[in-house]
């Protein structure tokens, strides 16, 4: 970091370097903030005249990745809950959930989900899980935000800036050229596949929300017609959740290993795997809902989604929480600097 601060060639790449220059010394909180601001695009690695094999061996994206995963651990709630580092944890979790779900799900036909798993059970389990997830995120977010002593003044405009950065992944676009991922060549691939994944996830979430409104306010019961709002949202989202993670997985496999923190492979792969599995099982469920396979598929799909829910606070998903918060802090700092 001292090297970066006296070189500054990378200043124009992304938000990290200007944020670095606003601090001349780095506390642990500063480092955690910078690490969570970093989108791990690696432009600065390829442009660095001091990158290995140079004797200074500067590798900013890798160092920040290592700091970042430790910060996840530090912020997690319940405190000390380790972040998942092994994909096996997730596979076992899913297997147990699926076995339970399959054991307790009676075989039915005719496409009525609630005949297989009663509505109350579904809402109960996911309601409790969802609530715990929100509480855990809340604690994590508060810990991240309060770690830095200096509090920037709140500004609404900065919130909009950060929202744009999150929704557009501006820091991965590298001024339109695309980031250097998975190798030294500029490409928008990662950004596009992340968009597929993110918006796919959001559409699936929207689909479930609309279905919940249909059910609770209008009394319209699932399953819904193929061209109903929840099904269309879910289908498009599901396709996104298949295309996105598949693309990200392919890119990840080709990633330049010099920049990878190998400890995080398990965390990354299990998250991508769960997203992909929820997309595939969801779509399969929709297509095969009229067949006898429905109840088993429903059980498996819900087991996948529940595994995803349970791991939300302890897996790769938290990057979205802390990254967004870091972008917000960054936007606040920029705005207050511009005003001076």
């Amino acid at each position, binding site marked *: 970091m001292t090297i970066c601060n006296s070189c500054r060639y990378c200043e124009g790449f992304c938000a990290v370097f200007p944020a670095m220059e606003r601090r001349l010394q780095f506390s642990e909180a500063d480092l955690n903030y910078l690490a969570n601001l970093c989108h791990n695009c690696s432009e600065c690695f390829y442009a660095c*005249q*001091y990158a290995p094999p140079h004797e200074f061996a500067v590798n900013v994206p890798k160092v920040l990745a290592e700091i970042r995963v430790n910060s996840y651990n530090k912020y997690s709630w319940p405190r000390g809950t380790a972040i998942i580092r092994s994909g096996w944890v997730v596979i076992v979790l899913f297997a147990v959930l699926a076995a339970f779900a399959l054991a307790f799900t009676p075989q039915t036909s005719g496409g009525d989900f609630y005949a297989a798993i009663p509505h109350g059970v579904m809402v109960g389990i996911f309601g409790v899980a969802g609530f715990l997830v929100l509480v855990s995120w809340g604690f994590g977010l508060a810990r991240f935000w309060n770690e830095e002593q200096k509090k920037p003044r709140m500004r609404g405009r900065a919130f909009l800036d950060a929202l744009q950065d999150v929704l557009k992944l501006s820091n991965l676009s590298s001024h339109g050229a695309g980031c250097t991922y998975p190798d030294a060549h500029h490409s928008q691939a990662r950004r596009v596949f992340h968009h597929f994944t993110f918006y796919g996830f959001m559409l699936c979430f929207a689909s479930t929300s609309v279905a919940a409104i249909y059910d609770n306010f209008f009394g319209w019961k699932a399953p819904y017609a193929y061209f109903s709002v929840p099904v269309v949202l879910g289908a498009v989202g599901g396709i996104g959740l298949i295309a996105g993670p598949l693309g990200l997985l392919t890119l990840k496999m080709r990633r330049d290993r010099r920049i990878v923190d190998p400890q995080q492979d398990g965390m990354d792969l299990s998250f991508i795997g769960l997203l992909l599995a929820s997309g595939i099982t969801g779509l399969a469920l929709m297509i095969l809902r009229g067949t006898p396979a429905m109840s088993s598929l429903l059980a498996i799909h819900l087991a996948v989604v529940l595994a995803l829910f349970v791991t939300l606070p302890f897996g790769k998903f938290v990057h979205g929480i802390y990254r967004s918060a870091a972008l917000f802090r960054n936007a606040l700092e920029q705005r207050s600097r511009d005003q001076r």
Partner: protein
Amino acid sequence: MKTPSTEETPFYDVLVVGGGNAALCAALTANECGARVLVVEAAPVDFRGGNSRHTRNMRSMTDSYGEEEYWTDLLRVTGGQTDEHLARIAIRSSPESRVWMKDHGVRFQPALGGTLHLGHTNAFFLGGGKALMNSYYEAARKRGIEILYNTEVVALNMPGGAFQSATAMVNGRSVELRAKTVVFAAGGFEANIEWLKEAWGEAAENFLIRGTPYNNGRVLKMLLDQGAERVGDPKQCHAVAIDGRAPKFDGGIITRLDCLPLGIVVNREGVRFYDEGEDLWPKRYAIWGRLVAEQQGQIAFSIIDSKVVGRFMPSVFPAIKANSIRELAAALGLPAETVEMTIRRFNESVKPGHFDHNMLDDCRTEGLTPPKSHWAQAIDTPPFLGYPLRPGITFTYLGVKVNDTANIVMRDGTPGRNIFAAGELMAGNILGKGYLAGFGMTIGTVFGRIAGRQAALAAN
């Protein structure tokens, strides 16, 4: 020269010797003129790009920085040791070069923090010189230009200035590189300590080389041996005072120290030897390499107090700190009593004034030899800070003479038909002395492109 075991390359139109900015500009241009091009770079892929990988900007004529102002700046720093015709070609072609660079994937960014004074004269590369070189190599790859790394040219078959082939070592094997024309863009000799010793004597052992270790001057020497006319002072190099803890090679930008004019500089005996406040730092930093080189052991020490901390760009190596001058001298390995006396006498000579390090202020010493003409403030506020200084060599001036088509001119005054030069190898034609920030990249880009075009034309 040729042994039976020697491999031969196919016959290329243009051979480019070197792998920095000028070399790649020549290769890309020659390729676009229809030539079949081979680039040979002595460095491995991770260290490709010569000294260009350490650069950050290019001086370019703009609406607010016209040809005459640019030329005047050049005239001032070189003290007239320049070729006006060639210099004006470089200056006039600079805006168009920027467009060309963008077309080849180079991206620009606003002036970097701490360099605002260069904002209206220099175009900064996004990510610096290595990113620029990455863009050019990427463009070359897309166009199918062949590039050999770890390939150093060790002999030239060039009777009477007519190039026939070059012998290169590729991973220990000897390969004969065959081409109709050749562009030499292999840099100067600043990384060749033995050669530096010819000018500086044993002192050169203690020099640090700020750039690539691959600029050993081998190509330059071969060209001179083959009868190319020389330009530039063979004994001069651009030398600045850098942090003495920097690595021997490739320390680059981060080893610079900008705090010299804010305090005093003493030699190994603890004695001052030059006016630290003679002129604004950007105009004086380049003389300090020579000043330090002339001291015993080629080392000196910048000493400041905590009043001026924060007024200069942070250095990568932490300052050596102490709460008294005596302790600081001990930490720096200097004779404590002499340093104390030097500082006491300096402090007593400081006249009151209004300190402003951005202009020639009125803080100076009186009755002190050597004087400090500006920014003289008593060194009295602990903790005291010290930095060791060594001469850091940036580049050398000696080169081969070229004409306005980048043709190498032989000692008899005739231009070689199929031999061209670009970059640091010929920069001495234009920059015979001194330095203008970002001008090396201008010369490299402009003459690289000229050499590439002319070599392609001469090949067909």
